[in-house]
């Protein structure tokens, strides 16, 4: 229950993180698109304003110039006093005023009410002048001054408009910058939050993984401990059973035999009908004794304790061939006579299992068992020339048990076999 809940929150954390990542990515996409389009917009604006300004400036220059030329001509005409040469013709004045007209038409369409009003006024003033000229009069100095001042105001307005546009552009740019900065800061903040969240998540996962790993390791070592204790307990049980059988049952049967023998010898010669009965009892007791001894040996060979490892292995070898198994040769090198009891048992059981496998499955006619002791290690080798098998596919309980025993001593078990190539079991045990 607890486990599934913890699992649930782990999953939840993952989904939250994924959603946050996606959101951040979307935010960055939107921000990028937005700033790009804003930039484009501002650029277009700048281009437009520049073109307008250029057109206005050019028009204003032409207007001023033509106005100045016109007013100079008007002044010349009005300042004329006879007889100072040929008087300027009214027609040339008119021509200059038409130049001003032409210049006015080049002015781009007005973009504000003030501009429009100025232009209208300029046109109407010019129209007034034209009507005066057409009537053969010379426009008054006052109206000329009026015209010039209107042109000047237009120029002022123009430069003011340019300034305004500049200010507006600067504002827009700074707005753009601000927006970019805001986005950047926001993204950074969000990214930082997500990174912190991820870090916390990873740390928690790591902590969980460590706890799980520790649990697994602990379970594994507990399992190993358990199976080692199992092997030990089994060995202990077998030994006590074997001793019990041998000492109690066996000895009682032995005593029974001795008594029966004495009874037979005490029997008067006349009692011939009792003798077969007595012999029957003795034979049955003898057979029983042999069976008890065999079971006891099967459980725990007493020679392992009485005589040592090598004699016990030699007995095992003979016993194997007595029961119809292969002929077994035991080779011994340097094996110490007072080897620790644990090691004697371990090596004996290893060889017993290997011989059992060889008898049952290999079909080998002969097996070689070699036990060598050197440099603080015991090497056990059981080699048969039988059918062999594929060790990667077959791993019976017997082999597992062998491995278990060897690992208890920190040793290694190696099984070398292939179909048709015989089997060699090699164990390498470090001595304590």
């Amino acid at each position, binding site marked *: 229950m607890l486990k599934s809940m913890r699992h649930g929150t782990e999953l939840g954390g993952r989904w939250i993180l994924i959603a946050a990542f996606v959101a951040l990515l979307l935010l960055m996409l939107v921000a990028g698109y937005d700033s790009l389009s804003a930039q484009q917009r501002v650029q277009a604006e700048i281009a437009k304003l520049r073109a307008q300004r250029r057109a206005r400036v050019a028009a204003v220059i032409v207007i001023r110039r033509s106005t100045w030329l016109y007013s100079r001509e008007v002044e010349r005409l009005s300042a004329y006093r006879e007889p100072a040469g040929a008087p300027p013709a009214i027609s040339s004045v008119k021509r200059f005023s038409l130049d001003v007209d032409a210049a006015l038409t080049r002015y781009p369409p007005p973009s504000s009410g003030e501009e429009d009003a100025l232009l209208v006024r300029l046109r109407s003033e010019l129209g007034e002048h034209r009507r005066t000229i057409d009537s053969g009069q010379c426009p008054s100095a006052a109206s000329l001054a009026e015209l010039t001042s209107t042109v000047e105001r237009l120029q002022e307005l123009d430069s003011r408009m340019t300034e305004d546009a500049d200010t507006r552009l600067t504002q827009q740019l700074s707005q753009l910058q601000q927006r970019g900065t805001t986005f950047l800061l926001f993204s950074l903040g969000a990214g930082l939050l997500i990174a912190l969240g991820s870090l916390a998540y990873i740390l928690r996962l790591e902590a969980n993984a460590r706890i799980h790993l520790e649990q697994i390791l602990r379970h594994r070592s507990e399992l190993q401990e358990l199976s080692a204790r199992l092997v030990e307990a089994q060995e202990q049980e077998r030994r006590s059973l074997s001793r019990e059988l041998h*000492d109690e049952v066996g000895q009682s049967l032995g005593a029974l035999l001795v008594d029966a023998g004495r009874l037979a010898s005490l029997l008067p010669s006349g009692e011939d009908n009792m003798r077969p009965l007595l012999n029957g009892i003795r034979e049955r007791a003898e057979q029983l004794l042999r069976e008890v001894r065999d079971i006891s040996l099967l459980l725990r060979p007493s020679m392992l304790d009485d005589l040592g490892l090598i*004699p016990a292995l030699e007995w095992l070898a003979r016993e194997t*061939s007595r029961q119809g198994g292969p*002929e077994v040769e035991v080779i011994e090198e340097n094996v110490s006579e007072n080897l620790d009891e644990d090691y004697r048992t371990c090596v004996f059981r290893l060889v017993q299992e290997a011989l059992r496998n060889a008898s049952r499955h290999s079909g080998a006619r*002969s097996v070689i068992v070699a036990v060598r002791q050197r440099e603080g290690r015991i090497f056990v080798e059981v080699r048969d020339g039988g059918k062999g098998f594929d060790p990667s596919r077959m791993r019976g309980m017997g082999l597992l048990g062998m491995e278990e025993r060897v690992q208890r001593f920190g040793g290694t078990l190696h099984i070398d076999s292939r179909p048709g190539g015989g089997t060699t079991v090699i164990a390498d045990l470090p001595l304590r």
Partner: protein
Amino acid sequence: MPQSIRILLADDHTVIRTGLRLVLEQEQGFTVVGEAADGRQAVGLAASLNPDVVVLDIGMPNLNGIEAARQIHAQSETIAIVILSMHSDEGYILRALRAGAKGYLLKDSAETDLIRAVRAVREGKSFFSPAVGKVLLEDYMRKLERTGAEDSYELLSPREREVLQLVAEGKSNKEVAEVLHVSPYTVETHRARIMEKLNLKGLPELILFAVRKGIIS
């Protein structure tokens, strides 16, 4: 009247000890001079009582029968030793012989063969339960059959076989020489040849071989 045979009996089971004691004491000229319940006690009693024959059970606490035999034999070579055992395996028999035992009795036939065994070892002869010889022979024959090896007994000359039997029965080179009317030196030569032909190391292995072949029992 011949001097009685003084016997020390060692077995950790009182029932068996009592039974065997009764069997032995029924026999004319046999005296059980002491009983030991373990190997260490047996070694001590052998030293203090100096019996003619010690009957030792193999499976005893503290010190097993074979170790006890080795120590008793080291103390005095005149004490003859009979081993009582549950096992008719040559590992036990060979080690019993190496420890200095002259007789090897299986417990399931002890009550019938014990008298004969004690008498035989007292006279310096070897004694083995008939069942022991049978098991050893079976093992030997099966091994010959399986490995296809030759029975090395066939390699011996008739004279060598005679020497083998006499030596295995427990006779010294001098006694063998007297029986065969040859010099002890000749007997020694025969013995060396026998050991070489049969690939044997020491007297215990030679006796074991003889038991196996049924030459002695």
